[in-house]
Each structure stands twice: as structure tokens, then as C-alpha cells.
């Protein structure tokens, strides 16, 4: 490959909210890839029959997996909210610095609230399983 110009490395920029949310969008996306594997394994267990499903649910009901499901819900809520922010930018809305900061705060607040609601639904009594 021929020598090409390199863009300046990340370290030369002052760190901003926008950069934090940008890297969190990637991290939550990667977390959601793992959650998607979990969803498909869970579906496959349900397809395999009652015994396999019961085994899968007993694993999911353990504390570490409960925590992982909660983290996956947090990743989903954040990726969802920040994804809407990206779509808004795509149609040209919200590029002003003040607007981008406000939408960043809004995304984090909405993601946290939605996660709390999801986790309450997940851990509500009487549903069985995780």
C-alpha cells in the first residue's frame, strides 16, 4: 500500500461529551452483539424442548446472568436513545453545540430511566425465571 496521510491521533483533541457518547455508542453496540448471541441461544433452547429451556432459564436466573441481562438492557436503552440522536443528526437537526450537549444529557437521562423501568419489569415478582 502507498503511504497515505494520517488523520491526527485522538490524543491531540480535547475530550468532549460528544466523544464520550460516541465511544459509548460503539461499546454498547458491541455489548448488544453479545446480547444478541444470548437471545439466539435462548430461542434455540426454547426450540430444543422443555428440558433445554429449563436448563437455560436456571443459568439465566443466577446472579451474574441477572446482572448481565440488566447491563444488556442498559446497553440497549442507551444505544436506542443515542441512535435516535444520530438519526436526528442525519436529517440535519441538532448540530449546534448547545443542542448537541442538551441532546447528550437527554439521551443519558432517557436511557437510565428506561433501563430502570425495564429492570423493574425483568425482576418483578411472580414471573418466574430471571
Amino acid at each position, binding site marked *: 500500500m502507498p503511504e497515505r496521510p494520517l488523520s491526527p491521533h485522538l490524543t491531540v483533541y480535547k475530550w468532549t461529551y460528544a466523544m464520550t457518547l460516541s465511544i459509548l455508542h*460503539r461499546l454498547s453496540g458491541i455489548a448488544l*452483539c453479545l446480547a*444478541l448471541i444470548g437471545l439466539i441461544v435462548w430461542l*434455540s433452547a*426454547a426450540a430444543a424442548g422443555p428440558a433445554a429451556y429449563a436448563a437455560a432459564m436456571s443459568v439465566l436466573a443466577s446472579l451474574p446472568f441477572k446482572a448481565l441481562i440488566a447491563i444488556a438492557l442498559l446497553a440497549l436503552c442507551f444505544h436506542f436513545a443515542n441512535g*435516535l440522536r444520530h438519526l436526528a443528526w*442525519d436529517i440535519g437537526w441538532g448540530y449546534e453545540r448547545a443542542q448537541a450537549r442538551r441532546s447528550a444529557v437527554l439521551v443519558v437521562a432517557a436511557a437510565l430511566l428506561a433501563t430502570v423501568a425495564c429492570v423493574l*419489569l425483568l425482576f418483578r415478582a411472580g*414471573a418466574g*425465571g430471571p
Partner: protein
Amino acid sequence: MSLRTPLGRVLGYGAAHDGVTKWLQQRVTAIALAPLSVWLVLALLGLPTRDYAAVTAWIALGLHPVLLALIVLLALWHAWLGIEVVIEDYEARAGLRSLWLLLCAFALALLAASGIYAVLRIALRSGA
């Protein structure tokens, strides 16, 4: 008429001219996944009970198998577009980059086939 020689064109200079395709696919899958993911999460978390009978009956109900198959495919396609960019950004060594991309592509294809098969198996068994 272009002044570029054919050799110049194939040496790796210039844009690939299909960059916007993946950008657009990422947006289209995102827009489709937005309502579908809300439905899936709220419906699954809101199931009255999570035992085998309740869950498989819900999966097989009405259009649910179609929507679930759609979610599996769209989510994996959206995931692939993201994974591809992450690998291309952080793996500078060309050989390893190709290896990671190949492994992830195979893994996602396997997940797509497994997901669709699982949904169909539950739907066809319960619906019959």
C-alpha cells in the same frame, strides 16, 4: 475522458464508491429495528410468566414468528455493519483484519441460520 491510467486506478487510491451503501443500510436497519426492539423487549419482559409453555406459545402466536425472524435478521445485519467498522478502525494489520472480519461474518451467518431455525421450529411445532 479520465487522465488516470488503469494501473493508477487499481493501486488502492481513491474512494470505493460504495461507502454510502453501508451507511444507508445502517440507517435503514436502525429505523426498522427501533419499533421492533421496543416491541420485543416490552413483550418479553411483560409476559405474565416465563415458563416453557407461556414463552413458546407467545413465540408461535400470530405474526410473532415473522417479526422475530425479521428482528434476528435485521439485528444481525445492523450488528455486522457495526462490527465491520470497529474491526476496520482498530485492527491495522491487513491479514489479521481480514481474519477477524471473516470469523465475525461466519459467526453472524451461523447466528442468523440458528435464530431463524429456532423461531420456525417453535412456530411450526406449536402451530401444527
